[in-house]
């Protein structure tokens, strides 16, 4: 009988669960349920992913144990200082959990601290024993699962990783071909957006699989620096492609092949490089080495263009040159990885500069909610006698509050039914089945069968949360210990505890700011336009005026918002209920998001060009005209931030176009006078790139305003239960 992959994974988890319980009961350790939790949580699709999660869990547990014991030791008789320090630490862990790295480590640090403190705090004589027990049981669960995963049907990440790398390369090449054709005004249809989304998804998956493959595959570990560089180059490629695409509107009226005479040869060379990268990733040696090529400009043809068209062309050329560098770097790095060429010095390639610490308001909101939950449950524990759950109320309250802080889009109502179902299932097993068992063989069969059933039925990645709740609640309700007792009252008390926790979380999540996806979307949208407005306002500062630290911090904050908010909006948009908002389609929302992303890129480009351009005499001459354009853009952004509507797209486009045309006229006059003081080609290119960035922001803003105008925002602002 050939078993399917999900059956094999279910068998592995069930076997590990049974063995972990067997060892814990045999050694007469208290709370074998903690070993069960470890097995339930580290069982993932591949050995590498499981090992990574296990490593994060055990290190988080050890750190949390040390911190919890320190908190108990510092304030053994001062309950308010005790909770102040504990809630502060858990708040810090919640904030760090929202970052890019080691999210699960910080999650474990937070909730394990709560568990050890609430189990050991009231009973400080046993605090050390409980802390060690938690580490022991967690280590046992991880060790047992790791051994089962390595020895029984080990599933390595290498095959999935190689497939993901190949798929990423193929999508990248296809996207490049589509964009090149689009630039030449060939109609590609709706493939662009689909490919861009696909590229983003594949990049995310590649990143996840790389982490897993580094753990369970020696070949990948050996070349990990090169693979990381491959990942960085892929991200840079996606950003450059997005920026390149934004220029297409401006290039529509141009005969691009006349202006860039060797564009076809240039385009073909890059396509060949991407094809060779695909070939090498499939394990075949390259048939063609990259040849040096530069994108030529027909200087005579350019003279007939307006300054803004020249600017658009300059920006496009820069991007294509950057793509040439990227394609060459990608070719070399893959050559090195696959052993077809010379080693590449990865340290020579600079990584992204560090922007400094910036507070994220959304992560801070999560911190406030978690700390509030902890305090309310603690106060309830102290002041309400015999509250259901006792210290377990604080434990579970903290755990669920941290889960919601990590995934704020998850509605609480969606969690209620899986948990209620799991409690009912666990109750039936605990009351009707377990009293009939008389030895570990029978108990082991029950554990194996139940764990197998849950893992098999909820095997799909989308059902991961249901699987987790099912396993965790079942083993918590079953409460298997050596001195086994059965109590219906215990189960009803646990059920009541969950009801209280959900009620509390519902109140905290919705007060004072609504957690409805459309309301959150509106708040984030307002913040985005507000940040854009701030950055436009502070674009060209007076170089004689020294910036204070606070102003520098403010700018960094708004730049961070500009880069991060479109992604957050994209995540929240998926949860908006279109049925409750009639007349609004997902396509309209997607158009708004695409416009926001474009505006974000253009603003970043404008900032980069404004910061990079030297004190150009031409820019100084045009200051008043640029200011007039800036004032108009700021006014539009303020309207979008406040009312989400800047009026009719055509009216706005005409107003901005009039300002741009006036600016163009002034450029002609200024360039005429500048002939007396010659400027270099490089200065001219910088100037045109700056102009291109201004125009780009105008175009993107008009597009944003147009998309926003089609949506009936008043329905979004209506209050609903």
């Amino acid at each position, binding site marked *: 009988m050939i078993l399917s992959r999900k059956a094999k994974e279910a068998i592995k988890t069930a076997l590990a669960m049974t063995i972990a319980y067997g060892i814990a009961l045999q050694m007469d350790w208290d709370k074998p349920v903690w070993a069960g939790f470890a097995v339930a949580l580290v069982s993932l699709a591949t050995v590498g992913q499981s090992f990574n999660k296990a490593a994060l869990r055990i290190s988080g547990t050890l750190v949390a144990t040390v911190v919890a014991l320190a908190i108990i030791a510092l304030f053994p008789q001062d309950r308010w200082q005790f909770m102040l320090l504990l809630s502060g630490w858990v708040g810090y862990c919640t904030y760090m959990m929202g970052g890019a790295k080691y999210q699960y480590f910080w999650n474990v640090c937070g909730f394990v601290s709560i568990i050890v403190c609430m189990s050991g705090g009231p009973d400080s004589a046993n605090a050390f024993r409980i802390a060690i027990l938690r580490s022991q049981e967690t280590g046992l669960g991880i060790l047992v699962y790791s051994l089962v995963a390595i020895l029984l049907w080990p599933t390595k990440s290498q095959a999935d990783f190689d497939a993901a790398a190949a798929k990423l390369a193929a999508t990248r090449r296809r996207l490049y071909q589509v964009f090149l054709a689009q630039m030449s005004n060939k109609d590609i249809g709706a493939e662009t957006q689909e490919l861009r989304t696909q590229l983003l998804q594949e990049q995310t998956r590649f990143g996840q699989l790389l982490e897993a493959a580094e753990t369970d595959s020696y070949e990948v570990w050996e070349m990990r620096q090169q693979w990381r560089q491959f990942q960085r180059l892929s991200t840079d490629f996606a950003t450059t492609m997005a920026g390149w695409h934004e220029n297409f509107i401006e290039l529509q009226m141009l005969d691009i092949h006349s202006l860039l005479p060797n564009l076809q040869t240039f385009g073909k060379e890059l396509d060949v490089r991407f094809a060779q990268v695909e070939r090498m990733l499939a394990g075949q040696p390259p048939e063609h080495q990259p040849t040096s090529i530069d994108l030529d400009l027909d200087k005579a043809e350019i003279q007939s263009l307006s300054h803004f068209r020249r600017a658009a062309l300059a920006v496009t050329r820069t991007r294509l040159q950057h793509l040439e560098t990227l394609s060459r770097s990608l070719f070399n790095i893959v050559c090195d990885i696959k052993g077809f060429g010379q080693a590449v010095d990865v340290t020579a390639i600079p990584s992204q500069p560090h922007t400094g610490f910036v507070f994220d308001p959304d992560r801070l909101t999560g911190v406030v909610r978690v700390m509030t939950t902890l305090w309310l449950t603690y106060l309830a524990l102290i002041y309400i006698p015999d509250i259901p759950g006792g210290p377990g109320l604080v434990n579970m309250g903290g755990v669920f509050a941290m889960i919601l802080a990590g995934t704020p889009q998850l509605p609480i109502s969606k969690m209620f039914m899986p948990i209620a179902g799991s409690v009912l299932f666990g109750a039936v097993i605990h009351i009707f089945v377990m009293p009939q068992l008389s030895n570990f063989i029978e108990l082991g069969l029950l554990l194996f069968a139940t764990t197998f059933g849950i893992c098999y039925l909820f095997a799909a990645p989308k059902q991961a949360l249901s699987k987790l709740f099912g396993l965790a609640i079942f083993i918590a309700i079953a409460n298997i210990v050596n001195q086994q007792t059965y109590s219906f009252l215990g189960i009803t008390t646990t059920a009541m505890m969950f009801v209280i926790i959900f009620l509390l979380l519902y*109140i905290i999540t919705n007060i004072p700011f609504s957690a409805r996806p459309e309301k959150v979307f509106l708040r984030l949208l307002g913040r985005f336009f507000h940040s854009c407005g701030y950055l436009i306002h502070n674009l060209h500062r007076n170089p004689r005026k020294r910036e204070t630290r606070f102003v520098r911090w403010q700018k960094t904050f708004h730049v961070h918002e500009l880069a991060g908010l479109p992604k957050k909006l994209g995540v929240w948009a998926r949860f908006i209920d279109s049925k*409750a908002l009639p007349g609004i389609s997902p396509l309209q929302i997607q158009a708004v998001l695409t416009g926001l992303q474009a505006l974000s890129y253009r603003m970043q480009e404008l900032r980069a060009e404004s910061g990079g351009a030297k004190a150009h005499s031409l820019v100084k001459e045009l200051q008043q005209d640029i200011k007039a354009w800036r004032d108009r853009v700021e006014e539009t952004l303020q309207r979008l931030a406040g009312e989400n509507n800047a009026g009719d797209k055509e009216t706005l486009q005409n107003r901005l176009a009039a300002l741009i045309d006036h600016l163009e006229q002034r450029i002609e006059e200024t360039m005429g006078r500048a002939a007396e003081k010659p400027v270099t080609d490089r200065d001219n290119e910088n100037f045109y790139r700056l102009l291109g960035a201004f125009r780009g922001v105008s175009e993107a803003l008009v597009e944003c305003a147009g998309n926003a105008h089609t949506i009936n925002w008043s329905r979004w602002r209506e*209050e609903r239960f």
Partner: protein
Amino acid sequence: MNQIPHEFAIGGVFMPPLMVVSLLGTIAAVVTALLLNRYRLSRYFSYPPLVFVALMVIYSVLIGTFIIRV
């Protein structure tokens, strides 16, 4: 209905009357909220989550006073 407050017994399991009243009050509040959403009357409230909590309390008090004594 018996006017003296007493526990509810289901299969030998005793439940306090306040728990039953709270549960019924919550169900009534949920139904009211769904109806208010359905007929777009919820837009007249400035803060529906607080209104929901208030409805729960009101229904619990009414049920506890007139239907199931607590």
